[in-house]
């Protein structure tokens, strides 16, 4: 066991003195993208160009500010806590609304800002002809601002703000092509599923806040660390419910693959750096509390482990490569959360955050490259994407690097972060409460070969040699019922097609590729405080398993025309996987339909019972009126009877009941 621990590095190269900005870096990091979104929306009214310039400038500035923050934090210059619009005068409750930066959050912020910048640049090209580019760009900027707010938040209310704004932005982005019914549905589903889970998040945060009477994360952590117990467990379980929603854990997993209906840049943003990762960020901020509550930790471990395996399996069987990536996101995010539960008590959440950063890099790369391929090849269904990297050489490298990193092949960033997780899980097993770590270890161990398998499958499909027309077919013909679509005449116009991507977008993808390759050094930087639990046999075993899985997939793909190993699976399984194992139907039957039935019942009750009383009162008054008129005597004699009877009654009332 070696512990790689650096103290704050004193010998960081001294940068030229920065101008003395007023305010803290965190404030800029959060404010710039939000302002850019507002400006883009207001200024970009007539031209997409203005909007693009605004958001890209904003993203560049954000990245600059985030980097500056990272630097200043590492040299310990700035105050780590800075104010926003608070404090709020909310009576007994203290709401300081502060931002707070730590090395971990600072590096996460840089990653987010970087991915956001690349996505903005890419989107300008990808949505060149979209009349609603302006809204899209502004929303992306808002989205990244919200994520940065969550990352840098020092106050659970700010966390909640960023959290909810992200949910809303995801609704707008997924439903961007709102003329498409499936996009509208997917957007609504994304919002509703996550919002449903947020029920727990809000209540959890409220419950946490109610303890110290303050919404500052530092206060909350201090308070609950001093008095853990059932209250804390309940609160953390509620928070975990919210995290499960945003991070697409079982049973909320199904919204994320559907969110592929959004334009590719949106998918890249949602899947890589922002929304789904937010759960990890929040739990990292509340990490001591998670560790203080074993039931919560175990629950999360079970959910995350189940999710990571299930999603990896489903990813393997997807007929659409974009959906494959989506399921892989589900799997990888669950892995981060699993890592949080597995880390031995007393250590920091660094390994999980490292995987967050690493995943942000390679997943953004994969999405953007695949989107590029989709533009070139016409789609991401297996039948379109097959031979993609053969036909379009320029996507070969980014896709290849991305898939290798995703599979966890050394020495790419994905390998490093995954192995660290494996290591800390292994260390966690030896800790006092090994339960969660044991589950996680099993899941990671089983998940690694599965990941390798679907990455291999994807790569085999993408890199299938191009079929030359009229070439003799050999081997089995499993999927030859339909003719392979003719999407592009080979060799003709490939260069033009490839050149169509704008050079900034290409540069962004290249940057991400580079970082994915060299990102493996991240744990060596002073920003991470990683306990390196190096366990060589475990490492070797996992690599061997991955290799075996890859070879198995290779073998299975032989003889399939598209080299799609999943084609070997029974059609029923494929279909079930495509439908996410019927989770959508389950949502409908278990939640949506009962709710609607309840709603109809409520309106019926409202109309017939509650309002019935109102109407009955009106009718009663009228009836009383008619009756009163009918029974009021119109001849003198009966009216005298009434008079005398009245006297009798009044006399009885007056004398007897007095």
């Amino acid at each position, binding site marked *: 066991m070696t512990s790689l621990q650096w103290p704050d590095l004193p010998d960081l190269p001294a940068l030229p003195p920065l101008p003395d900005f007023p305010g803290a870096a965190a404030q800029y990091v959060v404010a710039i993208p939000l302002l850019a979104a507002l400006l883009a929306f207001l200024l970009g009214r007539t031209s997409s160009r203005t909007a693009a310039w605004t958001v890209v400038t904003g993203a560049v500035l954000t990245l600059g500010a985030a980097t500056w923050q990272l630097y200043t934090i590492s040299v310990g210059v700035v105050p780590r806590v800075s104010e926003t619009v608070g404090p709020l005068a909310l*009576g007994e409750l203290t709401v300081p609304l502060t931002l707070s930066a730590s090395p971990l959050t600072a590096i996460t912020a840089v990653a987010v800002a970087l991915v956001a910048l690349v996505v903005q640049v890419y989107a300008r090209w990808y949505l060149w002809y979209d009349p609603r580019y302006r809204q899209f760009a502004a929303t992306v900027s808002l989205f990244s601002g919200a994520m940065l707010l969550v990352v840098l938040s020092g106050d659970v209310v700010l966390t909640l703000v960023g959290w909810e704004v992200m949910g809303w932005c995801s609704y707008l982005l997924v439903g961007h092509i709102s003329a498409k019914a499936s996009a509208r549905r997917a957007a609504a589903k994304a919002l509703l599923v996550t919002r449903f889970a947020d029920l727990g998040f809000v209540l959890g945060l409220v419950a946490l806040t109610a303890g110290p009477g303050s919404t500052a994360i530092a206060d909350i952590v201090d308070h609950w660390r001093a008095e853990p117990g059932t209250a804390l467990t309940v609160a953390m379980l509620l928070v975990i419910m919210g995290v499960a929603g945003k991070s697409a854990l079982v049973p909320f997993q199904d919204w994320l693959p559907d969110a592929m209906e959004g334009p590719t840049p949106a998918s890249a943003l949602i899947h890589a750096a922002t929304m789904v990762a937010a759960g990890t960020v929040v739990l990292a901020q509340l990490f001591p509390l998670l560790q203080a509550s074993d039931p919560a930790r175990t629950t999360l471990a079970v959910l995350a482990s189940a999710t990571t395996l299930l999603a990896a399996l489903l990813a393997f069987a997807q007929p659409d490569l974009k959906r494959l990536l989506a399921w892989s996101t589900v799997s990888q995010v669950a892995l981060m959360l699993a890592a949080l539960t597995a880390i031995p008590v007393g250590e920091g959440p660094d390994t999980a955050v490292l995987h967050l950063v690493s995943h942000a890099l390679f997943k953004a790369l994969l999405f953007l490259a695949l989107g590029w391929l989709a533009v070139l090849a016409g789609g991401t269904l297996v039948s379109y994407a097959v031979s993609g990297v053969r036909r379009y050489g320029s996507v070969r490298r980014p896709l290849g690097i991305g898939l290798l990193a995703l599979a966890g092949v050394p020495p790419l960033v994905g390998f490093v972060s995954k192995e660290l997780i494996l290591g800390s899980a292994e260390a966690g097993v030896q800790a006092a409460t090994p339960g969660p770590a044991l589950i996680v270890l099993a899941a990671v161990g089983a998940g690694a070969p599965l990941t390798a398998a679907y990455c291999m499958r994807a790569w085999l499909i993408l890199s299938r040699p191009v079929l030359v027309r009229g070439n003799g077919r050999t081997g089995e013909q499993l999927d030859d019922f339909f003719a392979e679509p003719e999407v592009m005449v080979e060799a003709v116009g490939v260069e033009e097609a490839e050149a169509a991507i704008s050079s900034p977008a290409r540069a962004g993808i290249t940057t991400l590729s580079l970082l994915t390759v060299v990102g493996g050094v991240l744990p060596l930087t002073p920003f991470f405080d990683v306990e390196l639990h190096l366990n060589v046999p475990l490492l070797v075993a996992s690599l061997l398993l991955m290799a075996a899985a890859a070879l198995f997939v290779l073998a299975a793909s032989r003889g399939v025309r598209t080299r799609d190993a999943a084609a070997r699976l029974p059609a029923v399984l494929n279909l079930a996987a495509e439908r996410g194992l019927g989770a959508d139907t389950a949502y409908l039957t278990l939640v949506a339909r009962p709710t609607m039935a309840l709603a109809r019942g409520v309106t019926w009750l409202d109309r017939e019972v509650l309002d019935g009383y*109102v109407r009955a009162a009106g009718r009663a008054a009228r009836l009383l009126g008619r009756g009163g008129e009918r029974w009021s005597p119109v001849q003198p004699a009966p009216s005298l009877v009434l008079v005398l009877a009245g006297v009798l009654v009044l006399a009885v009332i007056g004398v007897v009941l007095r």
Partner: protein
Amino acid sequence: MNDLLWPALALLPLLVTTLALAVADRTSSPPSEPLVRGLSVGSALLSAVGVVGTVLTGTGVDVVWIPALGVDLDLRADGISTPLVLLTAGVGIVATALRHTRPPVDRTEEDRTAPLVGQHGVPGLAAYHACLQLVLLGALVTFLSRDAIVFFVGFELVLLPMWLLVARHGDAHEAARRDGAALRFVLVTATGSTLMLLGILALSTLTGTTDVDRWAELAGASLSGREQLLVAVLLLVGLGLKVPVWPLHTWLPWVHSTAPTAGSVLLAAVLLKMGTYGIVRLVVPVVPEGFATASPVLAGLAVTGIVWAGLACLVERDLKRLIAWSSIAHLGFVVLALATGTETGLQAALFGNVAHGVIAALLFVVVGALKERWGSADLTVARAALREVTPRLGFALVVGMAASMGLPGLAGFWGELGAVYAAWAPAEDRTEGWFRLFAVVAAVGAVIAAAYAVRVLREVWAGDRLLPAIPDSHRVEGVLIGVLVVAVLVLGVYPSLLLDVTAADAAALLTGGVR
């Protein structure tokens, strides 16, 4: 005498314009539409200036009005009422500036869905604007008054003009429905306010004054526990009808679905606030023990209303009724926050009150504009997607619905979060277990809010239909909507703007006595 300047400027233009327009409408040749509207908007603007002046200078009127009852005409703004009078002034400008184009004749079944745009020269327009002015006057008197009886008079002052607005200028489709809705409004509110009056009179007998500040200072000291509870229940039932609190709410969707746009705006943004404001002024500080006893029931009804109304929104077919339902849900949050008895809750309630006012005004302006263009607000009719044909109105609808579901960064968030928090951590004399349950139910209600917001956007905003095309917002409408959107945004981003105004007085209310 200088003290009188600003309050007089706030109230007199409305009074004078009401009289002038009411008389002008009776002449054989009524004044032209631009003149009437100009006069009306001008009066609302002048009044708004007066309101701002009153608020800034802290001046007020204090004259004896009915000596026999010991009633003073004591009109002043403090931290509690300042946001509401400003809201009233602002919404007043919006409501008067909206163009009223409804032909009051009943339309037959066939042309029901035909759009109504472009029909001008509404008869009775001057009377319509007179009604708007009178509603504003009543609302301002209600919010400014520091005497319970004058408060009550202001409360009642809005009934007749609202009745006229709904009955005479409401939905053109069915006269019977219009009359029914208008009558419902008046009768329910009158019943409520009379019950409230009983409470006020009981209090005035027990304390010997009708000055609400004095009541707050006494904090129920001269009342026994039973009397406190009785008064609290009377006042809460009366005010609850106005708010409205479930199950006394059934009148609201009816009225909203038939009221003209400006009427809906005023009703939702201003009139409903009278109920919650009444609870803050007349119940919370005045009979604290009684309120504490009644509060679990009140909070339970409030959260039932939140969920109930939210569910109703999921299946409601009429867009205006849907917005009305959502109002019930939002005011449920406000009432829940009040019932917790904490300062946090009070602040959240005061914030939520104003926030809902702005949001509801925005939504009703937008939906009113849509209804005018569509010819009805029926959601089951296939229409062009707003995002494609009327992006500006569509955007406003998106902002409104997002705010309505409590999205952070927009006005609705802070009040609802505060309410849930306050319910989770209620005052010490409240039963914590029940209130935590209520917090959970309220949070469920917030989820349902997202569901109906999404439903509306899916059915109306997003889509691929481009026909029948309808015109986007015209100039005045656009400006009004823009202002409201900005207000929603500003309140959402910088809540201290409002919270700081109310903080000191809210604290004083709960600790007994006046700041």
